[in-house]
C-alpha cells in the first residue's frame, strides 16, 4: 500500500506536463492554455477532492476519467422529504456513478460533511441515498457537492416504479433460496429411498421418508411456486394459456399424487421432482431477470429533464424560482449561462449562443439574438438572456419528443420473444398429452384411477420445460456478459433477438458516426495567423475556439479579449469569429464549420473545422456491408456537413436536416417496406427513432434519456462494438434455436417412456438434470470461442 499511497498526489504535480500536451488533472481532457486544468469547474473539483484528502480517487479510476462538473439545474429542496423531527432525506439518480472509485469518493466525501448522517451509493442502480441533520432546504447544498465533483444528480422520486422491480427481484431470490433448500434435502431423502428399492429398506422407513419429504416439499412448493401460480392464474383468467399453466398443474398434481402414494404406503413419490423442477425453473427465471439488465425508463428519464426549476422575472423586476412544469406561456425567463432552458420561447433581450445538440442534433452552438426561437432542452452557453415563453409543459418540443417515444415504445412492446412463442404452442400440447395418457390408461389400459393419474403426472413432470426455461435466459446471460467485457451494455430483454434479425442500419451523424467534437482541417498552414488566433481563442470555451487552440498545440490566453456572445472575440483591433462578425462578404459553404480571423492591414484568414469520423467508421461500414446489411445516414445537421461525412465514411444513402419526427417517419417507412432496421443514434432528437426502430443502439456518450430509449449502449471511440453486437446477437440466436431444439428433442425421446409408464422418480430426476446441463453447456460455448469476424 505504501508505494501506491506515494503515487496519489501525482495527478496534481508537474508529472502531467511530461507529454506533448497537458491533460486536465481532473477530467483528462487536453488542456488549452496554461495550468493543470481545462476549466474552473475541474480545478475546483480537484481542490475539493484534494482538501478532503481523497486524491487517491484519481489513481483508483485507473484508465477512466472523472467527468467535468456542470452547473446544477434542478431545485432539489422540493424533492427532499422530512424524516423524524430534525432530519431530511433524498434519493438521487447519479449519472457518472459508474465505477467503484466513484462510489468510494462520493461516500467518503459526503461522510466527512458534518451534517450528513448517511450517504450510500449503489453502483448497480446508480442511486445515491442521502440523509442529513436539517431541513429539506439544505438539499441543494448537499447535492451541489455531488455535482461539483462532476457527477450529474437527478431526483429519484419520479422513478419510484423501480422499487417495485427491486421487490420482485428479492421475492424471486427468496423463492429460489427456499426451493434450493427443499430440493437438496428432499433429494437427500429420495436417494436413500431409491437405493433401498432392492429391498434393503423396510416399508415403514420408506413411508417415513416419504412423509418427511412431504413435510419439506409441501410448504416449499407453496412458497417458491408463487411466481408461477400467479402468472398461470393471471393467464387463465384472461382466457389464455402460457408455460406457467402446465408447470403449475404439474407441480401441484405431483404433490397431490405423491401425498396419496405416501398415504397408501406405495413405492414412488415425486416430491423431489416437484421441488427440483421449481428450483431449475426459478434459476431460469432469475437469469432471465438478470439478462434484462436495467429496465428501460426512457420516458421517465425524459421527464426528469422537465423536473427542473427556472428563474421567472416578474413585471416589477423581482425574480423567483419556479418548477418548469408550472411555467405558462407569457412568462419571462432569465436564463443564466450554463442553464438548460425549460420551455419553448423567443429571445427578448441579450445575445448568446445555445447548445441545441439535445433538440436538433446540431453539433455547433447556435448564435441567438432578440427574436430568435429557442426550445426547451437547449443550453445557454455564453451570456444571460431573457426569454418570453411561448409554449410550456405539455406543448414544448421536448414533450413532443416524449410523446413520440411513448408511442414508439407501445408499438414495440408487441414484439413477442421466440421463447414465448414456443411456449404458447407447447403448453396446449402438454395438457393434451397428459390428459390422453390418463384417459388411455384409465379407460383402455384398465388401471385404477390413482395409477393412471401417477403416469399422467410423470408425463407432466417430464414435459415440464426445465431445459426449455433455461434454454433462452442462459444464452442471454452468457452473451450479455461477453458483450459487457467489450463495453456493450444490453438494456432490453429481447435486444439480442431483435438485433440478430436486422438487415438495415440507420446511423445518426453527430456523436454516432462522428466523435462529436470539431477538429481543424483547413487554415493551419499559416503559423502566425494560427498563433494569433489561438491566443485569442484560448479565452473562450466555444468548441471551435477550443479546437483552434488544440490545433495550435496550446496557447496562452491573451489579456483583454472581449467576447461577443454568439458572434466572436475581439482584441486590439483583431477579430475572430463568424464570417458576418468579421465582415466577410462571400462565405464559402463547403460543409465545414469555420472561424475567420481579421487583422488590420492583412488579408482575412479562414479556419475550417470538421467533426471527425470515429476512427474505424469506414471499416465498420464496410464490415456491415460484408454482412449484407444496408447502411443509411440520417442527420439533423446541415446538408453540406452530412454529405461530407457520408462521402468520407463511404455511405451513399443519406438525408440531412431531418427533424425528430421526420426521423421516426423514415424508420416507419423502412419498416413498412419490410426492412428490419437497427438505429444508432445519440441525441435526444434520435430518441423517437431509436424507439421506433426494430432494434437500437446508442453510444455511452449519449444523453441519458436517449440511452434509455436504446436496446444497447456501447462505450469507446470506435464503432467496432456495433459489429460485435450484431455478431454476438446472430450467434446467440443460433444457440437459442439449438437449445430449443435440444430441449424439444429430449421431450420427444422421454415422453413416450413417460406415456408407457416407465418413468420412475429416479428416471425423471436424471432426465431433468441432464437435459438442463446439456443446454447450459451449449450456451457456454458462446463465452469461449472468439467472434467469427468483426473489426
Amino acid at each position, binding site marked *: 500500500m505504501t508505494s501506491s499511497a506515494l503515487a496519489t498526489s501525482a495527478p496534481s504535480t508537474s508529472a502531467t506536463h511530461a507529454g506533448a500536451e497537458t491533460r486536465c488533472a481532473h477530467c483528462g481532457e487536453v488542456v488549452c492554455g496554461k495550468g493543470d486544468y481545462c476549466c474552473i469547474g475541474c480545478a475546483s473539483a480537484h481542490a475539493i477532492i484534494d482538501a478532503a*484528502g481523497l486524491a487517491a480517487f484519481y489513481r483508483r479510476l485507473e484508465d477512466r476519467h472523472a467527468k467535468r462538473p456542470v452547473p446544477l439545474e434542478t431545485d432539489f429542496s422540493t424533492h427532499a422529504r422530512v424524516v423524524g423531527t430534525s432530519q431530511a432525506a433524498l434519493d438521487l439518480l447519479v449519472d457518472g456513478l459508474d465505477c*467503484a472509485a466513484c462510489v468510494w469518493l462520493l461516500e467518503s466525501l459526503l461522510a466527512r460533511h458534518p451534517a450528513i448522517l448517511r450517504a450510500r451509493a449503489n*453502483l*448497480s442502480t446508480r442511486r445515491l441515498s442521502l440523509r442529513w441533520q436539517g431541513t429539506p432546504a439544505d438539499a441543494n447544498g448537499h447535492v451541489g457537492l455531488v455535482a461539483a465533483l462532476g457527477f450529474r444528480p437527478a431526483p429519484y422520486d419520479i422513478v419510484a416504479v423501480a422499487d417495485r422491480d427491486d421487490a420482485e427481484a428479492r421475492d424471486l431470490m*427468496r423463492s429460489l433460496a427456499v426451493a434450493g433448500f427443499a430440493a437438496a434435502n428432499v433429494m437427500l431423502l429420495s436417494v436413500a429411498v431409491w437405493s433401498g428399492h432392492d429391498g434393503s429398506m423396510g416399508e415403514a422407513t420408506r413411508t417415513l421418508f416419504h412423509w418427511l419429504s412431504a413435510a419439506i416439499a409441501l410448504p416449499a412448493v407453496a412458497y417458491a411456486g408463487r411466481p408461477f401460480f400467479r402468472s398461470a392464474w393471471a393467464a387463465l383468467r384472461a382466457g389464455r394459456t402460457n408455460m406457467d399453466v402446465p408447470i403449475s398443474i404439474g407441480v401441484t398434481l405431483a404433490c397431490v399424487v405423491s401425498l396419496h402414494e405416501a398415504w397408501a404406503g406405495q413405492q414412488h413419490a415425486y416430491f423431489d421432482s416437484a421441488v427440483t423442477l421449481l428450483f431449475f425453473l426459478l434459476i431460469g427465471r432469475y437469469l432471465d431477470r438478470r439478462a434484462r439488465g436495467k429496465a428501460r425508463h426512457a420516458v421517465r428519464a425524459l421527464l426528469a429533464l422537465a423536473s427542473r426549476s427556472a428563474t421567472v422575472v416578474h413585471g416589477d423586476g423581482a425574480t423567483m424560482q419556479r418548477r418548469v412544469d408550472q411555467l405558462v406561456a407569457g412568462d419571462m425567463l432569465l436564463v443564466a449561462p450554463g442553464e438548460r432552458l425549460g420551455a419553448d420561447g423567443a429571445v427578448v433581450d441579450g445575445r448568446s449562443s445555445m447548445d441545441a445538440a439535445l433538440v436538433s442534433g446540431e453539433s455547433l452552438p447556435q448564435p441567438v439574438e432578440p427574436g430568435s426561437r429557442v426550445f426547451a432542452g437547449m443550453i445557454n452557453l455564453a451570456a444571460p438572456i431573457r426569454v418570453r415563453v411561448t409554449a410550456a409543459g405539455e406543448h414544448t418540443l421536448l414533450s413532443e419528443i416524449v410523446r413520440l417515444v411513448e408511442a414508439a415504445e407501445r408499438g414495440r412492446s408487441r414484439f413477442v420473444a421466440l421463447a414465448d412463442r414456443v411456449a404458447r404452442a407447447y403448453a396446449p400440447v402438454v395438457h393434451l398429452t397428459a390428459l390422453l395418457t390418463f384417459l388411455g390408461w384409465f379407460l383402455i389400459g384398465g388401471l385404477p384411477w390413482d395409477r393412471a393419474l401417477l403416469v399422467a403426472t410423470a408425463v407432466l413432470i417430464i414435459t415440464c420445460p426445465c431445459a426449455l426455461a433455461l434454454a433462452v435466459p442462459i444464452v442471454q446471460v452468457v452473451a450479455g456478459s461477453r458483450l459487457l467485457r467489450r463495453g456493450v451494455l444490453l438494456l432490453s430483454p429481447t435486444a439480442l433477438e431483435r438485433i440478430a434479425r436486422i438487415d438495415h442500419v440507420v446511423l445518426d451523424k453527430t456523436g454516432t458516426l462522428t466523435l462529436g467534437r470539431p477538429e481543424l482541417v483547413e487554415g493551419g498552414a499559416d503559423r502566425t495567423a494560427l498563433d494569433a488566433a489561438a491566443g485569442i481563442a484560448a479565452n473562450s470555451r466555444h468548441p471551435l475556439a477550443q479546437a483552434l487552440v488544440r490545433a495550435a498545440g496550446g496557447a496562452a490566453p491573451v489579456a483583454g479579449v472581449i467576447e461577443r456572445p454568439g458572434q466572436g472575440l475581439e482584441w486590439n483591433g483583431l477579430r475572430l469569429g463568424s464570417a458576418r462578425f468579421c465582415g466577410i462578404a462571400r462565405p464559402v459553404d463547403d460543409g465545414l464549420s469555420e472561424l475567420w480571423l481579421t487583422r488590420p492591414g492583412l488579408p482575412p484568414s479562414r479556419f475550417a473545422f470538421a467533426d471527425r469520423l470515429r476512427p474505424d467508421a469506414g471499416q465498420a461500414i464496410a464490415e456491415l456491408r460484408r454482412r449484407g446489411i444496408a447502411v443509411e445516414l440520417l442527420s439533423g445537421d446541415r446538408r453540406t456537413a452530412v454529405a461530407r461525412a457520408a462521402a468520407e465514411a463511404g455511405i451513399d444513402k443519406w438525408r440531412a436536416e431531418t427533424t425528430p419526427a421526420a426521423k421516426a417517419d423514415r424508420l416507419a417507412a423502412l419498416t413498412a417496406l419490410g426492412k428490419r432496421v437497427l438505429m444508432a443514434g445519440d441525441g435526444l432528437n434520435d430518441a423517437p427513432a431509436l424507439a421506433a426502430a426494430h432494434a437500437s443502439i446508442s453510444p455511452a456518450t449519449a444523453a441519458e434519456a436517449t440511452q434509455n430509449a436504446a436496446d444497447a449502449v456501447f462505450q469507446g471511440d470506435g464503432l467496432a462494438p456495433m459489429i460485435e453486437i450484431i455478431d454476438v446477437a446472430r450467434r446467440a440466436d443460433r444457440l437459442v434455436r439449438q437449445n430449443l431444439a435440444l430441449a424439444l428433442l429430449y421431450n420427444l425421446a422421454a415422453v413416450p417412456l413417460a406415456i408407457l409408464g416407465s418413468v420412475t422418480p429416479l428416471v425423471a430426476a436424471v432426465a431433468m438434470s441432464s437435459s438442463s446441463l446439456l443446454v447450459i453447456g451449449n450456451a457456454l460455448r458462446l463465452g469461449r470461442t472468439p467472434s467469427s469476424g468483426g473489426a
Partner: protein
Amino acid sequence: MDSLLVLVPVALLLGLMALAAFLWALRNGQFDDPDGSAGRILFDDE
C-alpha cells in the same frame, strides 16, 4: 436405524440454518449492489 432419528433432524437443521442465514443476508441488503460491493472491499478508509 436409530442413527436416522438423529441424523435426519441434524441434516434438516443445518439446511434450515443456511436458509435462514441467506434470507437474513437478503433482507439486510447484502445482495442489493453486487457490483458496488465487489469494488468496495478493495478500498480501505483512509
